[in-house]
């Protein structure tokens, strides 16, 4: 672990945070960028359908970070009805190693969460490996609590935390019913527990 950090320091990219450009998912040309990033950083293999499921149904919840034209980070999310609450779900979050520790992941995920909040989500959830200190710290700073521990959640035998962020004032938001309709019109029945979704957060 320490060695990894050492290596990361040695290969730190030099840049000014304002040089990073954040873009909402813009179409098919962004898909290979997201796939490459996730494939590169995570061991779990995802088929192209996994990515399509998220970016086709919730393009406005996915963001990419670019530095001088190079894609250096991405966040992939969804939202929908879950046991009578309308909740957002963060599926994947990746920032490549040389760009970590400079707030890119925080910015990416903050943008997604803001859209979720504006769309009427009552809460946001995700899972993270109990050993992924970077991700846990990041989500902790954003107000997520560790709601549950999931025993041997990953195939490698590591436990996961289910993280949850509850938004204040659960008032009925006008866009809530609209969103539900939109999701419905895609013929997608979103009564899936998040457990079934891919889940990885590599950001530090």
């Amino acid at each position, binding site marked *: 672990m320490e060695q990894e950090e050492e290596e990361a320091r040695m290969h730190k990219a030099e840049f000014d945070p304002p040089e990073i450009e954040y873009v909402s998912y813009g179409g098919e040309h962004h898909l290979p960028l997201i796939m490459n990033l996730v494939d590169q950083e995570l061991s779990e*293999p995802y088929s192209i359908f996994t990515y399509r499921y998220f970016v086709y149904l919730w393009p406005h919840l996915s963001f990419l970070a670019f530095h001088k034209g190079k894609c250096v980070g991405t966040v992939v999310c969804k939202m929908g009805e879950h046991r009578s609450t309308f909740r957002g779900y963060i599926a994947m979050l990746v920032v490549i190693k040389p760009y970590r520790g400079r707030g890119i992941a925080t910015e990416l995920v903050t943008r997604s969460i803001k859209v979720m909040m504006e769309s009427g989500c009552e809460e946001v959830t995700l899972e993270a490996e109990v050993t992924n200190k970077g991700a846990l710290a990041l989500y*902790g700073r*954003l107000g997520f*609590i560790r709601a549950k*521990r999931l025993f041997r959640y990953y195939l490698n*035998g590591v436990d996961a*935390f289910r993280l949850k962020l*509850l938004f204040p004032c659960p008032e009925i938001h006008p866009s809530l019913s609209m969103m539900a309709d939109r999701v419905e019109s895609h013929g*997608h029945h979103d009564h899936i527990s998040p457990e079934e979704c891919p889940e990885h957060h590599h950001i530090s």
Partner: protein
Amino acid sequence: MAERDAAEATMSHQAPERSSIPSGDNTVWADISPLLDAACKELGDGEMIHGENFNLFAAMSALEIMDPKMDSGIVSKYCSLDEAIEDGAAPVPLSHDKTIDVQSIIDIMDHLLACEATWHSGHSLAQTVFSCIYLLRLDRTSSHAILHSYCRVIRATCKAVVSVVSDARTHEEEDLFSMTYGLPLDGDGDEKCLSFLNAVEETICRQLRAYIEPLQHNLDLEDGFCKALLCRLRFPKCYHAVAFCICLQPVVLDITHRICSLPALLSFIRLLQHFFHTLACMRRPQGRGFEMARKHIASCILELESILKSAEFLRFGVCGTCEDSIEDKTTASGHTPIGFDASLNSRSAAPTPPRAIKILSWKRAVEYFVKLLHDLDVICSYSLDPSLEGVLRFVVQFQKSKPDLVARAHLQVLLVQDGKLYGRDPIFAVITKASALPEFTKNHDIQKSECFMQLGQLVINMLKILCTNAAWQRRKLGKILQDWRVIYVQLELALRNEVGEVSSNMDDEKMSVKILRHVLNWVEEQTYWIASRFLMLGFELDLYSPSEYCMVYWYLYVVLIKLAEKTHFRMAVSNEPIKRKGKKKKDSLKEVAKESRVHPAILFLQCHMCLAEGLTMMLAALRNDLMVLQSQNPFNTEQERFLQHFELLQKACIPDHISYPSFKESTSYARLSTLVMYNYFKDAQRIAKEIKSSFSNDPEKLAELRRIEQVAEHNGIALNVISQVGALDPSLKVTFEFTHHPCFATAVVKRS
């Protein structure tokens, strides 16, 4: 367009008849290559051909064929078990050379041990134990006595373990464990397998004697030579030994090898025999086989020790000094065992995840079994305490060693059998005893009422949940709090009805009222006990962040107050024949605690209360005075985090009238200066010291009191340091660690 062209193209190509899967009444085999070709030409990026029922969510389950990460089929060497066997992947005998045959069998036994441990740790049977080709086709091994009988006992052992885990149903999240569909787990006559193994054991013993006698004879003649050989064989740095042995006559080497291999072989056989017996003894109802099981467990541990010792010899000449690489191996010798292929089952019906798994190393596997045997021994040495309080204490203590699934399943099967405690005590009798009711009430007709039937079920569920892994347990405990609350309300209603009704039989009416009163108090006590366990497990599972400790300790404190109140009431009515009304003010307990006659069990709870209150106030004062341990974030406030952490408790009104505002109210005025004046930690220390003598026969409680004292002492000092220099020295950093207690943190003060 593309679809129509392709469809036409398909019509013109009649696909060849496939023999393996016949076409059905309304289906016909067709070559779809032209369709795909045509589609490829027409479709742009992101377009696809799909049926009407296609949806993107279901498509996520798609596997990309020919991608080795997803398509486990392409990495397998053989298409079928038969092909593997034909290719000689699992020869019988393993070798015509007797020495190699014996060594290979030991490798197989080693690897099976590693497989079994890996299976117990949450992987599928198909990818672990049943990756053994010999096990998949046991009939092939019948000519090989050792291999055959060993495999049969392994199979029977697996079956016994599956049975106990399935009976316990503690494996909610570990359901891979008992999936045996498609595996040849059932064998005729496996009950006789032990007798086969016993016969084999006898034969090996005879062989061993036959080898040793001539050598002993030799020893007299060529004492120095043999000693030199033997000691070199045991010498860890094997280079010299290898060189030495190469010069020796092959016959001598052969005999020495066999002599040293046979005890290892025997150890394995005996380990398996004793393990099988252990499992069988443990399944006898009401712990009747425990004494015998403990004997077998002790023998198992002895055999495991011999197996560990044999490793040095078996490793001889294999990889010289490369100790590191042996660490990952699944055999003591470091050899790859003959006859295993984990990918074979991925083509069969057996349920396996599509990815390869890593089998535990031989060393880790031996460690696993030592731990398992130890845990089983703890269960077997338990004296079936008839009081529920004793049972709960034992289970909580047992869980502290983090036992694995198999051990936990055994405990659960022991505790709950046929809807009775230990399969012996009716739950209603257990409840009346726990509620401090007189013995004869256990036969009262009230137990037949719906309410009490449900309560009995709740108690059984609670016992089962307490045997599950900590993560699952906490979630389930949180959920059942609501059920306990509902039963409380129902019992309260029943009590009101009873009191209101004028019964013809006054004595009987009185008795049912008495039962309801006692049970009602006990239900509350039990509910608060569950709530406190729920909150404390959160620390063990690392669910709280330092900025949340304050609210968690506060909640724990209010739950502990109620728990102590209910416990006190129960003890008061059981000790005094004169009825006392349970109306108490919130703070009355503190006053009561000052009286000398308070029961030590209450004072014990009081220690925990002092720590919880002390930590709450210390954390609150740190926030109020030094502005540390606060967490501000862009999306929500502390109130939302409070609601989320205690949602299940709040829903069940545990305790009543407790909310975020009451938390704020009790902590917003905390100041370091006042805390030093009234130091809760000193109280904790003082009470812990006072009650030690009451628990002189209870090592667990004494150990807990020592932990309490340590936490209290360290925090008391830290509080003094912080209050003296804290506000003046901005470089002072306060962190909280769980060095002395798993739930109660110790403050660490450092200058940064």
